[in-house]
């Protein structure tokens, strides 16, 4: 049954380019004119890419939409035209259709004439000759890059929710644990125990508020609102907020900035958030490092080269191994055990990208980490 159906399709498509079809008398004017153009014109106008290929994947015919985006390709191999490649694709639906005369579907990443990559869903259908052999294959490709992007966003959302619930559970554990310690301290009128419990509660309140700010930041599609600011002023403001916490964690917090840095177009709200997250991260790295009793975190703003300046946050905390470093910004890094991690660095990455900047990470396990953000000193006002 299936075979017969394909054969019919094949026969029909074989005759596509010849002549037009009979139009019912009540067809509206516009549609009638279109039909008068003939099938070839309609195929040319289809909002998808159509090629007809022989057994060696040589392109025999293309439609206009294809030629618009991939250029002239008759005589070229399919993989040359679509991928600028020299080899057949691993799971080519056209090859499968030549093998079994059936319709096949695949997904491929192709390169448009302007160099941009696009993801395609590819349909291959057989064109059969009078003996029922596959004479050629019609390949129809639709650009599904937008759908793929949405799919990625959904996956990301799922991962985000999983990581967030993990972070929130850890914070809840801290809040409940802290409250329990306070209760026990009150019961025994043990002031020291009350203080210890209360500090656990306060720490977790700070963590939940940082988490919420980062959730809000990462969920909004906000555009940077830039103004001319002095990078060192931002460093001073943000570092100022962390002195008390640094003291409680036995961290020496240093700020170093070059006063000759020029005013730069930056989104001050975003850059403050970015610096806060990097400092928060550095503090956590120090807190997790049990080898040293006292740690140092340095925050810098300085020239990098003639066109760029840098923000740096350096710690001598626990450091990271290579696999952790690699995964830092690529996705939600959800293998972390403590609260408040993962999302913060993702927000940092988002802010740096919005500013057209670059982020470098240098780290050694047990030695510490350095996060360096490079930004142009000639940022345009509207990013």
């Amino acid at each position, binding site marked *: 049954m299936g075979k017969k159906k394909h054969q019919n399709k094949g026969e029909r498509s074989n005759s596509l380019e010849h002549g037009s079809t009979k139009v019912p008398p009540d067809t509206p004017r516009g549609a009638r004119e279109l039909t008068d153009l003939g099938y070839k014109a309609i195929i040319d106008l289809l909002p998808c890419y159509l090629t007809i290929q022989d057994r060696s994947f040589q392109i025999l015919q293309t439609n206009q939409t294809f030629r618009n985006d991939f250029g002239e390709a008759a005589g070229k191999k399919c993989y040359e035209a679509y991928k600028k490649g020299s080899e057949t694709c691993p799971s080519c639906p056209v090859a499968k259709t030549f093998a079994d005369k059936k319709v096949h579907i695949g997904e491929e990443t192709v390169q448009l004439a302007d160099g941009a990559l696009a993801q395609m869903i590819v349909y291959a259908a057989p064109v059969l000759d009078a003996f029922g052999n596959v004479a050629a294959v019609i390949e129809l490709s639709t650009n599904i890059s937008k759908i793929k992007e949405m799919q990625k966003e959904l996956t990301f959302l799922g991962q985000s929710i999983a990581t967030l619930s993990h972070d929130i559970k850890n914070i809840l554990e801290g809040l409940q644990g802290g409250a329990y310690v306070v209760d026990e301290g009150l019961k025994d009128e043990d002031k020291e*125990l009350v203080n210890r419990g209360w500090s656990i509660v306060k720490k977790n309140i700070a963590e939940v508020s940082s988490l919420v700010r980062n959730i809000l930041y990462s969920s909004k599609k906000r555009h940077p609102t830039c103004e001319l600011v002095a990078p060192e002023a931002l460093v001073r403001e943000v570092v100022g907020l962390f002195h008390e916490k640094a003291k409680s964690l036995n961290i020496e917090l240093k700020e170093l900035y070059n006063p000759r840095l020029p005013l730069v177009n930056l989104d001050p709200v975003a850059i403050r958030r970015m610096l806060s997250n990097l400092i928060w991260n550095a503090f956590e790295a120090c807190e997790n490092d049990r080898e040293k009793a006292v740690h140092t975190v340095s925050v810098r703003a300085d020239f990098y080269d003639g066109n760029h300046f840098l923000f740096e946050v350096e710690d001598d905390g626990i450091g990271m191994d290579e696999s952790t470093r690699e995964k830092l910004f690529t996705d939600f890094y959800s293998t972390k055990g403590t609260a408040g991690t993962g999302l913060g660095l993702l927000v940092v990455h988002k802010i740096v990208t919005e500013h057209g900047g670059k982020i470098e990470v240098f780290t050694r396990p047990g030695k510490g980490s350095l996060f360096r953000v490079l930004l142009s000193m000639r940022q345009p006002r509207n990013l």
Partner: protein
Amino acid sequence: MVDKVAKILIIDDNRDFLFTMETFLKRNGFATITAEDGEKGLELAQKEHPDLVLLDVMMETLFSGFEVCKQLKLDPGLKDIPVIGISGMGDELGVGYKKESDKEYFNPDEFFEKPVDKGKLLAKIKELLGQ
């Protein structure tokens, strides 16, 4: 005859959690020892031979909680010590978790999810200790 006080080893890289659990268990009549990473935890287990181990399976240290569990269960002298695993990851229970134990992987005897229900935890500890 007075019952011997049961000794519980708590292994977690979060100091606040260690302190909270220590306070909780001591106030419920147990003796506690603590370790902030897996390596020290294993050392303590070998030296002190606790009656039960409370283990964070999602520690950020190089020696993960699941690895600690494996080492405990592979040690003939320690394999009978009940292990309660604690994770903040919910149903997935975190990276490195498998549903079934095998030659390479050993599940803790029980799992608890953060935030830990202290009443249920106490009941489970008593059950595992045969109290």
